[in-house]
């Protein structure tokens, strides 16, 4: 065995090998098409759970379930060398299941035409800390920044407008007749549900405040970008106002926050929410269920025979189909619904406050609409269909992953039964 160490230089070589074996960060060298040439053990540790059965022969393939656009992103990168992505976050799963990291960071550097280097690391904990910080930031932002104009609204315990004042008129244009109406009247139609409004109040009770940013509506129907802070009023009696709602018009800041939001939460190709946004929204819904039980439906959908579309029309044709599908999904959904692309041709929609029959009806409407609306591509029309699995969150489920699994099973049934159809997940049995 000592023969390995006899040659001069051999010790250096072994030390170098061991240095790479032990490096606490994943390093991969790959070809332009993603083929892996070299990788160190930590890369394998991070990547193997993504594809326990597949070999690590191609990095784009290995990461395709969580970063479907990587190949396209590299192809679109025109420069001879440079950073293709820098510490991009990849979201592997919704919750901590003990099955490896939840969030990976990926940097990709182009060295020359046919050589790339990737750096991978597990940033699960860092991501969690940052999310906490973002919440604090949003709060500080709401109270510290320019508050030149704001509407101050008092609400009763049920969230109805309790008193009217000049500031409401100034910012929203509503007059005193709005007294007694739910505060949803400041939101565009479909942007909130009665359940969601009550939950905000409960969140305010528990945390001392609740904040959300989004479109608001004035009396004349025009819209503006606003931030709403709700806070419980201390020492209130039964007959007095229970909450204070502050609405600020932050339209001038919208561009900044929207750009940031897009970069972080939007899918590169379709403009829908990405995996990260979907998981975060799903977690929020699940947390809410502990406070107020309400139905939550999940649709998982998949473009049928998508590989054939790619084979026939090429990837740009496939992309056109995915974009059209995203449009159609948006057209049948409410603003409060969470519409996301999870990867490849796999999409999901969370429908808050929707029971099973209604969810199946939405799915059926979507399926029919997709069949009716082909995607336009180079003066041709690509006809395609989707299969949809529907699942309802029930009290026995422990997390979002279980709901996703049930919807996935239903989707699989829809595929097996001939595609272009909707199937609902079998209601789960109580586990104990």
């Amino acid at each position, binding site marked *: *065995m*000592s023969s*390995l*160490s006899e040659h001069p230089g051999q010790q250096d*070589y*072994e030390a170098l*090998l*061991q240095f*790479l*074996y*032990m490096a*606490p960060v994943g390093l991969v060298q790959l070809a332009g098409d993603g083929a*892996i*040439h*070299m*990788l*160190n*053990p*930590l*890369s*394998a*540790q991070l990547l*193997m*759970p993504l594809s*326990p*059965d597949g*070999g*690590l*022969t191609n990095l784009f393939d290995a990461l395709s379930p969580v970063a479907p656009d990587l190949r396209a992103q590299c192809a679109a990168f025109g420069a001879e060398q440079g950073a293709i992505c820098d510490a991009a976050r990849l979201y592997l799963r919704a919750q901590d299941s*003990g*099955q*490896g990291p939840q969030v990976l960071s990926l940097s990709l550097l182009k060295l020359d035409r046919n050589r790339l280097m990737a750096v991978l690391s597990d940033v699960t904990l860092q991501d969690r800390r940052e999310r906490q910080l973002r919440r604090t930031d949003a709060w500080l932002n709401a109270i510290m920044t320019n508050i030149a104009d704001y509407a101050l609204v008092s609400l009763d315990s049920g969230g109805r407008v309790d008193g009217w004042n000049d500031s409401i008129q100034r910012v929203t244009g509503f007059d005193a007749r709005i007294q007694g109406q739910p505060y949803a009247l400041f939101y565009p139609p479909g942007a909130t549900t009665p359940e969601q409004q009550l939950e905000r109040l409960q969140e305010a009770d528990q945390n001392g405040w609740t904040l959300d940013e989004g479109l608001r509506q004035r009396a004349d129907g025009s819209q503006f970008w606003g931030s709403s802070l709700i806070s419980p009023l201390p020492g209130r009696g039964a007959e007095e106002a229970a909450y204070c709602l502050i609405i600020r018009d932050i339209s001038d800041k919208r561009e900044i926050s929207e750009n940031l939001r897009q970069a972080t939460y939007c899918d590169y190709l379709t403009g829908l929410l990405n995996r990260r946004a979907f998981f975060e929204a799903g977690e929020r819904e699940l947390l809410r269920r502990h406070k107020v039980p309400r139905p939550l439906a999940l649709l998982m959908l998949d473009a049928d025979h998508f590989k054939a579309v790619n084979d026939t029309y090429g990837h740009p044709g496939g992309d056109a189909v995915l974009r059209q599908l995203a449009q159609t999904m948006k057209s049948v959904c409410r603003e409060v619904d969470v519409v996301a692309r999870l990867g490849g041709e796999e999409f999901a929609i969370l429908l808050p406050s929707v029971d099973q029959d209604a969810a199946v009806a939405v799915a059926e409407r979507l399926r029919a609409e997709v069949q009716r609306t082909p995607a336009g591509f180079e003066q041709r029309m690509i006809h395609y269909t989707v299969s949809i699995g529907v699942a309802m969150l029930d009290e026995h489920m422990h997390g979002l992953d279980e709901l996703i699994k049930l919807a996935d099973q239903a989707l699989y049934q829809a595929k097996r039964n001939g595609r272009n159809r909707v199937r609902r997940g079998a209601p789960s049995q109580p586990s104990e």
Partner: protein
Amino acid sequence: MSTTISFSQPDLLPLLESMDEAALNALDFGVIGFDAEDRVRRYNSCESQAAGLGAERVLDQHMFMVVAPCLNNFLVAQRFEDARAEGSVLDETIHYVLTLRMRPTKVRLRLLCQPGDGLAYVLVQRL
């Protein structure tokens, strides 16, 4: 010692325990034995050559932190941890990709562990 011992033969663990270093070195698959503290105690020459590391660099080192960080996940390390916590027998063979000399290498891994004081083993067969 007969050299007909194969990677997949049943009841391999007691056999490995009874083999001396020369017999381990004669095997045509990699053998890494580690104790309850995950310190590597045995490392045969097949594995040493494949990894490009002399045994002296590996013996006494931590199995999942230093020697084989690529196995430090729920597919491998977790299985040993669970088997030890439950006091159960572990004998599973899985397909895996190792990074021997930083080259992705398809292998079969056999994970062996029994309750008691004996070593746990990872066996590596290159495909």
